[in-house]
């Protein structure tokens, strides 16, 4: 990972309300965390009421930004011919949902999401060539977690 890529990540986060971004690819890892006093106050809040049962305290969500990758080399399309785009930036998607199509030798292969979350950015323009494994969608995933001490120790 070089400085340019790091700068790109920072730019990406700036315009959103992402608090944490964790990136891992082939052994390279980098994490960004937004420093904000408002957020600190929210983190502390759930701990004040110990009588509340653990399953009810889902006040903080850990967000990870992951990618949906191309399953094949070919041409990336946002939709089948003459149809509207399958997804837009800002859409919420679920695992199993069709988000794009890759075409190779007249064969159309569905790109199916393996993630639950919100599409933050579509990384490839319609009708452009993509490699196998290339990042297509940036998705802010949502995984609700509890903020009691047990979970903190595990994290």
């Amino acid at each position: 990972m070089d400085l340019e890529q790091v700068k790109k990540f920072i730019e990406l986060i700036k315009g959103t309300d992402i608090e944490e971004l964790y990136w891992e690819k082939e052994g390279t890892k980098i994490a960004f965390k937004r420093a904000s006093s408002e957020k600190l106050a929210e983190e502390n809040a759930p701990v004040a009421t110990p009588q509340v049962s653990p399953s009810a305290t889902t006040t903080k969500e850990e967000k990870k930004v992951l990618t949906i990758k191309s399953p094949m080399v070919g041409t990336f399309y946002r939709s089948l011919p003459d149809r509207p785009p399958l997804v837009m930036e800002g859409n919420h998607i679920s695992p199993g949902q069709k988000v794009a199509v890759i075409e190779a030798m007249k064969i159309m292969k569905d790109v199916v999401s393996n993630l639950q979350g919100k599409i933050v950015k579509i990384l490839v323009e319609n009708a452009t060539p993509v490699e196998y494994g290339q990042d297509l969608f940036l998705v802010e995933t949502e995984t609700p977690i509890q903020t009691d001490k047990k979970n903190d120790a595990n994290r």
Partner: protein
Amino acid sequence: MFKKVLIANRGEIAIRVIRACRELGIRTVAVHSDADRDCLHVRLADESVCIGPASASESYLNIPSIISAAGITGVDAIHPGYGFLAENIQFAEVCESSGIKFIGPSAEVISKMGDKIQARKIMEKAGVPVIPGTDEPVSLEDVHLFKIAKKIGYPLMVKARLGGGGKGMRLVQDEEALKNAIATAQAEAKASFANPEVYLEKNIEAPCHIEFQILADLKGNVVYFPERDCSIQRRHQKLIEESPSPQVNAKLRKKMGEAARRVMKAIKYTSAGTVEFLMDQKGHFYFIEINPRVQVEHTVTEMVSGIDLVKEQIRLAAGEELDYDSDDIKIQGHVIECRITAEDWERDFIPSPGKVTNFAIPGGPGVRVDTHIYSGYTIPPFYDSLIAKLLTIDKDRESCIHRMQRALDEFIIEGIKTTIPFYQKVMRNEHFLEGEIHTNFIQRYVLGG
């Protein structure tokens, strides 16, 4: 001439083709699997495309992915290298129908030569000697089976109709073993080549393997090059090649070369290819097969003739004609090649992938190294174990062997096991120095069998 070529291969041969393209002013596209992101051919090409995960079947053997990569990069030709899809009839056809030139012979010729029984018939018709054997597949139900086998004589070979490259063969010592050998060979043939048909051939005792490099253009001109002796093998895979052969004099060279030329004309072959012969102790030679591709050992012929075969192959594919003949080719000296693999020769040549911690190639006069390895590179376990081809040339065989000894001693590869120590042993073996080479050489003289 082509503007852009995609190389449907990896490792040292991909680099070889990239080099030839670069010298011809052609832009190159490398394809690679996920596991090959750090492979040197990716770095040396002008463009690269990841086509699939590590497994060969999902990447380098995946025809739709390769054609897709060719489409998105806009190439006008594909070079298949050797192995992988180089002799895949369907691939050659798909290229043709996609309007992409396949740098190699036509699908029709590949198909014709892939059928070993049909190939034998074509050779016989062309007046080229073939090994005594059956001209039809044999059946266990045939009442005449033992009679046919007896006529050929034991020991004999059971061979797969669609086999080749040393695969799908079984040696049968006597009548007792025949039926079992045929049954096993049929099962193996079905598994490997999707066709269980097998035929019988006489076994030539301790033969020499002599082959002729051929170039053929679209006008029917066929040129043969000085022979390669590939007798030093292990389990039918070549280890050492040399040119010219210690077993072949000028008269025999002309006789065999002309036979090779007849073979290629008979099948209207185009592009680069090789005609393989076996030669017995009495100097009789027999056609065994054609290799319709550029081979690993093409480098030997390049050094002995001074001609760049890969560039010639690309030129021929682009429609150029050959403007020289076999008589114009002068033998420049004696050449030897050692195929260095990432294998532990002391433990039955078990593959030894892993990280190469230190890598330094030999140099100096008359030394050539074709490799994709570099210091710090991790050899993946998914592909074949060839890591470098080391060649030396000198004025005669003895000097060439001494030069090879020097070059092997200079070669540094650390972090993995390689077959360098094995070749150092062979290069000092008295029988090798005498030129007593045949296909049982390794078993008999080196591995102590």
